[in-house]
């Protein structure tokens, strides 16, 4: 078993375990932090998938952006809000959650079934890519290539997203302002 595989299993385990903790935990702050653990583990998995730029972006935006944003919300809202936000029904396994659990389990089984039955590595386009040697190798550096593609092939989405971001920024700012007249 190669180191990559060990790492993959480890990362997967961490990601899933922390995700399960997020699902199971009633403590909001803890689940937020465990969520970041998940994000970090995922970033590791990206690396293993030879997408180091994406991994870095993941850490920067999620950890640096969203984490900070959420904590910001807590802190800005004050203690009262935090407590209110943390207020949760005590019971761990409510019966009402059973349908959701079942349906999720069912979905999982379905997906598993689907993925196991369709050998993803044998998909035509993947075979084509392998055949064309269009596969990223561990030794390749893709950052440059990403930058070129972003500015050429994917320029339009890039621009659209930037406008979207701007709107989101404006919207968030508008929403977050203190009650003035509304």
């Amino acid at each position, binding site marked *: 078993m190669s180191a990559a595989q060990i790492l993959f299993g480890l990362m997967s385990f961490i990601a899933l375990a922390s995700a399960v903790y997020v699902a199971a935990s009633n403590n909001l702050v803890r689940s937020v932090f465990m969520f970041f653990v998940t994000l970090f583990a995922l970033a590791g998995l990206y690396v293993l998938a030879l997408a180091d730029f994406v991994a870095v972006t993941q850490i920067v935006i999620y950890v640096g952006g969203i984490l900070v944003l959420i904590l910001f919300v807590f802190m800005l809202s004050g203690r009262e809000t935090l407590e209110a936000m943390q207020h949760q029904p005590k019971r761990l396994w409510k019966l009402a959650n059973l*349908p*959701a659990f079942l*349906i*999720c389990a*069912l979905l999982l089984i*379905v997906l598993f079934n*689907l993925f196991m039955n369709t050998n993803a590595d044998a998909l035509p386009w993947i075979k084509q890519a392998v055949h064309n040697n269009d596969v990223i190798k561990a030794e390749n550096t893709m950052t440059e290539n990403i930058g070129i593609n972003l500015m050429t092939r994917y320029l339009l989405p890039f621009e659209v997203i930037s406008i979207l971001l701007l709107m989101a920024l404006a919207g968030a700012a508008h929403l977050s302002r203190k009650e003035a007249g509304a």
Partner: protein
Amino acid sequence: MAQTLPYQQLTTCYYALTAVVLPVLAFAVNFFLKKGKAAGWISTIAIGATTVFAAIVFKQQWNAPLIHATIPWFTIGGTAVNAGILLNNLSVLLLLLVNVIALPVHIYSMAYMSHDEGFSRYFTYLSFFCFSMLALVVVDNLVLFYAFWELVGFSSYLLIGFWFTRDKAVQANKKAFIMNRIGDVGLLIAIMVLFSQYHTFDLNALFSADGLVANSTLTNGLWINGTSTIPAVWQYLACAGLFLAVAAKSAQFPLHTWLPDAMEGPTSVSALIHAATMVAAGIFLLGRVYPLFSVHELDALAIIGCFTAFMAASIAITQNDLKRILAFSTISQLGFMVMAMGIGAYASSLFHLVTHAFFKCLLFLVAGAVIHEMQHIRDENKLDFDPQNILYMGGLRRKMPITFITAVIAGLALVGLPFTSGYLSKDGILIQAFEWSDTKAGVFKIIPILTLITSWLTAFYVARLVFKVFFGKFRLSEVNPGLKLHVHDGPWKFNVPMIFLAICCLFPVFSLNPFLYEHAWIYKSFLPSNFLERMNPYHTIIPIALNILSLLVIYWAYAVYVLDKKLPLKQNNWLFAFSYYQWYFNEAYQKVFVQPVLAISTGLFAFDRKGIDGLIHFFNRIILWVAKLSAAIDRYVVDGFLHFVVALVRQIGNFARSFQTGRVQYYLLTTVVAIVAWVILKILI
């Protein structure tokens, strides 16, 4: 009248009709007037006028060709039933006889019933009886005949039960009516047989000399009448039915037991109905339907008539009730008549019917007069005894001379001694019985001998009766010394009818020759045209032997009852008891017929309740059970299903409503469910 009749006949018809209608008018008037002493006169005058009309009819019609006049009565199906009158010798004789008997009885009754509360009721009934009886003798078809036959029985019922507060009377009239009803059923069956065979009810068409019956034959077990042929058994049945009818009305064995009980009615009624007229209706019926009977059936008639005559006479010798003795005597004499019919002595039978009517009626009137006096004694001295018991009487001949003389005349006529009417008619029957038995063998040889014995028995009981009542000492005084006795002959209303009837008991009324019955005018009129007067030893030997022995018997009775010689027979042996209890017929009938019928009826009613209703209730229970089951099914299955459906719908509704909660998470869940379901479907299909 529908047919055109000669004027003479037409008036005769109208006279006859008037004779029939007058009593019913009297009945109607009395019925609506209710109370009052006028009733007696109304009825008597009516019957008097009727007698006149009857006499005219008799005079015109006796030995004349028959008159048959009809009007349509109703039509049923293809059969037209006519109402009409048929006047021949038989009917006009009876018409006159009934009137001649009824008129004295009416007069007698006015005195006899004068102190009774139901005086007008009595005459109402009596008029009704006269109407029925007169109509019975003149009607021309079987339906009407049956109708009046039964009405006669009904009026007899009313009159027997005249004192309806007396239990015995009421039971007696019930018995009489039911016994008569048995006969009626027989008659009805006979009528139905005749109707189904001949398709007509007309007496003339059926029974005239060359009528339908005369022209049909019995051969090889078939009864053939022109086109219609039925098994001969129906002819036997018809005869049996007719015989039953005769037996019921004329008190023949086995239906004779009602007549002694019928003596519970007023004595005048017994005199008219149960001695002279109604009981003669049976013989009259035999006379009407005579052609139907074949030889063997006539033999059977003879046997039964003879047996009845003997049985009744044997009972009469031991009875103590004055009226019962006479009743059994009547049965016995009627037995003679039936036997006479059976042996072919048609004319003698009817002749005896007439003579018997007079002397028996007279005897009853005498009995009535005696009983009247006895009741008088009873009421005057405030005693309690049976005024009809001959053991209490005695020595009345000096106190009631007229009564005594008439009683002796009637008694001699009944015994059949010469110079009386009874000699003429009864000895005729006896002689013919012997002649008849010459042609027969075996058991039929006994019949004339039994008849002879019966005659002597008759002589004995008549003598016993007369001696007990009129001779010796008044025995009641011996038991109750110091009795006030105001006994005397009755008023003229008693005496005149009795004397009149006594005259009618003598020979000149019927035949100028006191010894030869063949010379009696009634006898001659009924003879078949081919009758040959046969003189043989019987005609002299029998009357002489019979009468000498009868005189001996009478003397014996005189010795026993007046001179107080010992009776050679002991009174406490079984033979005496057998006779005294009337051969135990009543008890036997009670056990054999009445009680079983009642038991059957009770049993059937129980069956009705327990059996049929039980079955119904059983079904009911099953149905109830099924109903309960179905109710349960209804509640738990059908309703359950309904509730289930309702609940299901509600759940689905709730379920569907739950999608519209406004809860984002549910929407999401639903979406996922849908997607998963879709995917699963995709995979599976």
